[in-house]
């Protein structure tokens, strides 16, 4: 290790109109280290990295790569400077092979054949060196998300990148895949590569980084050695105030069963069976968390219960059967029966982005008598009501005339939560409550869900964030391939056991558990692919 930083940024500033995304940012990243950059959504992390990769031009400031002042006007220049970037949303051509994706833009000459055979050799070497094994002839669309990410890393390494930037790399991975990624990254660091990891997950920062820089509202607030810091200090730096990282809740006092699900099955429009004999009970005063890798039937479970999809089987609410098909199996009827639904995809299913906040706060309940009788709605009452709810849920800004799309992710979620929780439902279905939501707002949203629980309501929580499930749920059910693989109590399980269940493994095999998980994930994908054909 030398004293010359691999990357040094001096006084970088960037504004988008009136919004100052980066304010006078300076940072030094030493070679051969894993450097974390952490901050809330909108803190300016991605903007900063986009400047480094030539996507945006900084308004002011200088970039030094390996001690040399470097201009990076476009991605080509970044690649020449030895920078590789793995974006959060992969930049891969889905119907190309791995090889074709790797050589794209880095071909040797006018004809493809020589480049392809060279890349084949390089890929083999990289696979041996860094556990970066991917079938070079596989089509991207047939690969798991984890393998697609490896292709992105391979692309960078094929271009001989010395600096690898990863933007929220674990957001789409299972715990096992994330572990594998971290092994790869450590291997790369040990070979002398410099790695910049952008994330909002404190656990990852603590687990893998050597140094961490914290960003808040476009400014770099601190750079510390990870070993000398701790999660709560970092969280405080990120948010600018003390934050409760653990969900503060009393032990659950479960009462009588409210929602009883038996043998629920659902087949989607393309003929794929998404739910297979799901049985689950949610009692008064408890939060049941559904864990699972996304796409294993959790979304469909919420849709069926929320009245957005039909199913076979039986669902009882307070002992009364509710219809799962026909005219009464719709969202309006479910809401009238006391089942409130905070959908997973709030921007498409929870809100109408171009409608005002007050309209969004009324949706689904706008037929209520107190908002006017007959054809006409009492808009004044609606707005007064909305203003009141927005204040109580600390929606910022509390302006009912603002369109939904103009609120941040956290505030959009608060609008949906306010709408659903304030009607005092018997059952709250809540999907991905904190996806894309800042730490500060996460704390608030979790508190509201716990508050509803403590009022004796039944809550069914679906989340792909294991931390969230472990922290918030009183009982955990794991879904895989449309089935409930098992139920666990948070106090009696851990990430590892849940991770295995999420991969469809009920018995942990002796030896390399992680490989078994990967194998079973690949199996699942192969089945999926076969079904789609």
């Amino acid at each position, binding site marked *: 290790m030398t004293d010359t930083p691999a990357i040094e940024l001096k006084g970088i500033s960037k504004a988008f109109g009136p919004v100052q995304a980066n304010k006078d940012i300076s940072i030094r990243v030493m070679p051969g280290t894993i450097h974390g950059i952490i901050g809330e959504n909108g803190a300016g992390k991605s903007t900063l990295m986009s400047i480094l990769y030539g996507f945006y031009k900084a308004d002011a400031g200088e970039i030094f790569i390996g001690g040399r002042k470097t201009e990076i006007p476009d991605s080509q220049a970044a690649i020449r400077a030895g920078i590789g970037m793995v*974006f959060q949303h992969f*930049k891969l*051509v889905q119907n190309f092979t791995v090889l074709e*994706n790797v050589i794209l833009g880095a071909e040797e000459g006018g004809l493809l054949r020589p480049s392809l055979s060279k890349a084949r050799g390089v890929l083999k070497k990289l696979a041996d060196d860094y556990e970066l094994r991917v079938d070079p002839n596989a089509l991207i669309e047939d690969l798991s998300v984890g393998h697609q990410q490896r292709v992105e890393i391979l692309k960078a390494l094929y271009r001989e990148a010395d600096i690898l930037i990863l933007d929220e790399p674990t957001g789409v991975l299972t715990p096992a895949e994330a572990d594998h990624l971290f092994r790869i990254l450590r291997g790369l660091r040990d070979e002398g590569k410099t790695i910049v990891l952008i994330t909002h997950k404190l656990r990852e920062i603590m687990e893998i980084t050597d140094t961490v820089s914290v960003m808040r509202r476009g400014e770099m607030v601190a750079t510390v050695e990870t070993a000398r810091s701790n999660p709560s200090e970092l969280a405080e730096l990120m948010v600018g105030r003390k934050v409760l990282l653990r969900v503060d809740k009393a032990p659950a006092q479960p009462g009588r069963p409210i929602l009883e699900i038996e043998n629920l099955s659902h087949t989607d429009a393309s003929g794929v069976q998404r739910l297979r004999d799901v049985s689950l009970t949610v009692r008064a005063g408890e939060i049941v968390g559904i864990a699972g890798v996304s796409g294993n039937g959790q979304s469909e479970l919420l849709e069926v219960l929320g009245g957005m999809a039909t199913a076979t089987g039986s669902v009882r609410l307070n002992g009364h059967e509710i219809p799962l098909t026909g005219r009464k199996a719709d969202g309006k009827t479910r809401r009238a029966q006391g089942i409130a639904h905070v959908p997973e995809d709030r921007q498409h299913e929870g809100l109408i982005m171009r409608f005002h906040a007050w309209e969004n706060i009324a949706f689904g309940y706008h037929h209520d008598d107190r908002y006017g009788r007959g054809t006409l709605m009492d808009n004044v009452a609606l707005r007064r009501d909305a203003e009141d709810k927005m204040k109580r849920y600390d929606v910022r800004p509390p302006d009912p005339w603002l369109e939904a799309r103009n609120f941040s992710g956290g505030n959009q979620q608060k609008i949906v939560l306010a709408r659903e929780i304030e009607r005092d439902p018997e059952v709250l279905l809540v999907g991905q409550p904190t996806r894309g939501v800042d730490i500060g707002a996460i704390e608030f949203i979790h508190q509201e869900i716990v508050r509803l629980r403590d009022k004796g309501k039944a809550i069914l929580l679906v989340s792909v964030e294991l931390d969230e499930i472990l922290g918030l749920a009183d009982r955990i059910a794991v879904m895989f391939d449309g089935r409930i693989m098992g139920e666990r109590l948070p106090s009696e399980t851990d990430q590892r056991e849940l991770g295995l269940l999420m991969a469809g493994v009920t018995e942990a095999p002796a030896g390399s558990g992680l490989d078994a998980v990967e194998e079973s994930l690949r199996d699942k994908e192969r089945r999926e692919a076969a079904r789609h054909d």
Partner: protein
Amino acid sequence: MDLATILQVLDSTVRLAIPLLLACLAGLFSERSGIIDIGLEGKMLIAAFFSAAVAFATGSVWLGMLAGIAASMVLSAIHGLASITFRGNQLISGVALNFLASGLTVMIAQVWFSEGGRTPSLMTGGRFSDIALPFAETLRPIPVLGPIYAELISGHSILVYVGFLMVPLTWWVLQRTRFGLRLRAVGEAPEAVDTAGVSVAGLRFAALAIAGLLCGLAGAYLATGLQAGFVREMTAGRGYIALAALIFAKWRPWYALGACLLFGFLQAIALRYQNIDLGAFTVPVQVMDALPYILTVVILAGFVGKAIPPRAGGQPYVKER
């Protein structure tokens, strides 16, 4: 039906398929790069007019062809400017170009030639003459194969042979060259091309230039090969049929050849058999003329099977984080 009749129908199939094929390959380049090209019709039409007009004025069919290509490429450039540089709606830009070509050709023709929106008939020299392949006449007496060689394979204008050669050439460019790889990539995932440090706009403009060139050839063939001069709306929807053929061909060059030959065959049948007497009733000529278009509708209505268009087709590329 004797061999001579079959050969005549097939011969006219080839002649009628060529403009479709050239336009279809033009559309293929454009759409594989992610730019939907409804303006094939207009480009062919304007190329047909300028090739006929310049061929008439200069007496050189080659100068005519170059003028046609140039005119077609100008329209391609406008399409690129509107839909790539200014990120406009590609369908609207294409439709606008079709209207532009439709009006412009007739108006200029009227101003220049005063013959009711057409060019004067082209004499020899202003038209592509048919090429007799070697030994065509020598081999003619050989049964079956002789006439096939002499009638069907030999005796077409140079552009027919160019058109057929374009098929393997297109395949080779797409599948075997760096440019082809990038072109296919930019129609599927422009963000992947952009982050790889290659210009998305550059590739798409290049694709449109090729489309302009091929449409120019198609138009020149219509006015100076197939017919002897320009008449208003002489493309008669061929640009749209080429688009249908492109979908039918699932955006692949060899399939495009098959699809265009099929459409050409239908047109040839319609030309040859004006009224078909089925005994109980007679199929009127209008039905026969409409057949290629009816088939287009049927095909577009989903008899193609699963045709997956290039994923980024129709969407202007906007850089995002």
